[in-house]
């Protein structure tokens, strides 16, 4: 394919791969980036919220030309049962700032922009090329990659594995395990197009302001999962994801799940009259801290979703991907600058840098959360939302029943559904996992 030898090969042109390739090329390294899609972004799916801070650390003036949709001024959390939602929402004019903190983006368009920056920085980016395996020498050191192109073997000092959640190459080379069904969620997503004025009217927005809604409850049919509704300029991105193991055990289908979410009386009016232009689906790492594989070795580092770096509780993934890609690149640059070899020992600098960053600190904070939500999914996603909805409705409906009697009935329904021990236990477990 190419006879040259590279300082680094980056596999994948998603958030993590683009961050790594850009950072390496900016620092003058000779970089080859390989992407199997027709273009960067062709295979990638996101909600999508972009977190400015992590991109600013890579491309400080990104706001000048990045394809940003709306800056977020409001966040809603919905706990849903079949006919209602109990909500919490936060909106602030403070978010109408000069350099907004969060934006919605259309992922494919964003990736194309980011990929152009990578090329401008001097990396050689080759799309439509699937990497089929890693090339290892006799001692197991990674020395390059094989691709599906003619004479498709290329060599480099170090390979950055930014191949996303499936981690096929890493698994095949024995660097990590295949993700387990209870540690990844399958999310499907649709793009509903509407005129921007309609979106602004329905969500109470002006100009480029945006809203995101995160939803949980009976919409996931007792499975561990969440729904989302994000506003872009001219489309609403809507989706729902649940653990693969839950799909496997319940026989629920992803397409029925998203259809039912769309038909919910709280959701249907928001997307009424829209035109659907795409249906996509993708896995999300959900195992948290305990599912993170080895992040480096002789001749390789692993970044982003490939390393399962995803904070499912806060719905953060792209920022962890960008940060890990940048840190891996900075570590490689330091090793290279010292003219040291790309051994596991030297590349452990990346692990040290990521341990010191918010990435590992946040993931560590919630390390017990995934297991808790999974084992208690019926309570957290079915029983509680139904009980909360009933209590709210009783509280609001004025029908001559004395308030004290209503309160007692609500409490009783909680206790009979879950028992005092169950309630207390769930509260303690949740508090502990959150701490």
């Amino acid at each position, binding site marked *: 394919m190419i006879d040259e030898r590279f300082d680094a090969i980056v596999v994948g042109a998603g958030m993590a791969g683009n961050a790594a390739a850009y950072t390496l090329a900016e620092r003058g390294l000779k970089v080859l980036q390989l992407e*199997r*899609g*027709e*273009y960067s*972004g*062709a*295979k*990638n*799916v*996101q909600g*999508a919220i972009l977190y400015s801070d992590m991109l600013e650390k890579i491309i400080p003036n990104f706001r000048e030309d990045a394809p940003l949709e709306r800056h977020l001024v409001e966040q809603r959390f919905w706990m849903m049962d079949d006919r209602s939602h109990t909500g919490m929402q936060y909106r602030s004019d403070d978010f109408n700032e000069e350099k907004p903190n969060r934006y919605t983006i*259309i*992922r*494919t*368009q964003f*990736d194309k922009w980011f990929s152009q920056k990578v090329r401008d920085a001097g990396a050689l980016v080759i*799309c*439509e*090329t*699937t990497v089929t395996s890693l090339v290892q020498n006799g001692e197991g050191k990674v020395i390059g990659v094989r*691709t*599906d*192109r003619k004479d498709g073997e290329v060599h480099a000092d170090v390979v950055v594995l930014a191949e996303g*959640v*499936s981690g*096929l190459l890493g698994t095949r080379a024995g660097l990590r395990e*295949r*993700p*387990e*069904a209870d540690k*990844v969620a*399958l999310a*499907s997503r*649709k*793009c509903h197009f509407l005129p921007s004025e309609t979106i602004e009217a329905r969500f109470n927005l002006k100009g480029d302001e945006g809203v995101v809604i995160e939803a949980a409850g009976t919409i996931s049919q007792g499975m561990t999962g969440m729904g989302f509704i994000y506003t872009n300029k001219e*489309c609403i*991105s809507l989706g729902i994801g649940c653990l*693969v193991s839950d*799909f*496997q055990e319940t*026989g*629920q*289908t*992803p*397409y*029925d799940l998203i*259809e*039912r979410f769309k038909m919910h009386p709280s959701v249907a009016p928001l997307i009424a009259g829209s035109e*659907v*232009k*795409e*249906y*996509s*689906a*993708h*896995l999300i790492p959900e195992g948290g801290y305990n599912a993170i594989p080895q992040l480096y070795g002789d001749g390789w580092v692993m970044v982003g979703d490939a390393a399962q770096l995803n904070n499912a509780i806060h719905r953060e993934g792209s920022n962890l991907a960008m940060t890990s890609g940048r840190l891996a690149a900075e570590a490689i640059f330091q090793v290279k600058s010292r003219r040291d070899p790309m051994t596991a020992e030297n590349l452990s600098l990346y692990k040290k840098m990521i341990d010191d960053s918010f990435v590992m600190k946040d993931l560590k904070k919630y390390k017990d959360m995934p297991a808790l939500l999974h084992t208690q999914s019926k309570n957290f996603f079915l029983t509680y939302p139904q009980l909360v909805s009933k209590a709210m409705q009783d509280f609001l409906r004025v029908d001559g029943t004395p308030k004290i009697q209503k309160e007692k009935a609500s409490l009783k329904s909680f206790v009979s559904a879950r028992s005092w021990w169950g309630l207390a236990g769930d509260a303690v477990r949740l508090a502990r996992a959150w701490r």
Partner: protein
Amino acid sequence: MTDLSVRVEDKLYQNRYQVDSGKVHIKVREHDKPSGPLRALLTACPARCYELNDKGQVEITADGCIECGTCRIIGEASGDIEWNYPRGGYGISFKFG
């Protein structure tokens, strides 16, 4: 529920694919009666690529595959399916992601 399920083909109709004719990237191991994981794929695949044939065996038609990797997670460990990415440039191309 069936009237909901039928619509998955309509959904996929919106998507853009480059079909690599003659090359399949996912294969189902030959079987008489489908195993548990294979049966799970009938419902878990978001593009409904897996279906039962008239002999009661699970078959795949991967043309509408959106390359999510779910079937690999469910069916690769037991050897029920063999999973690869399509050749570079082929398969799904999202416009919005």
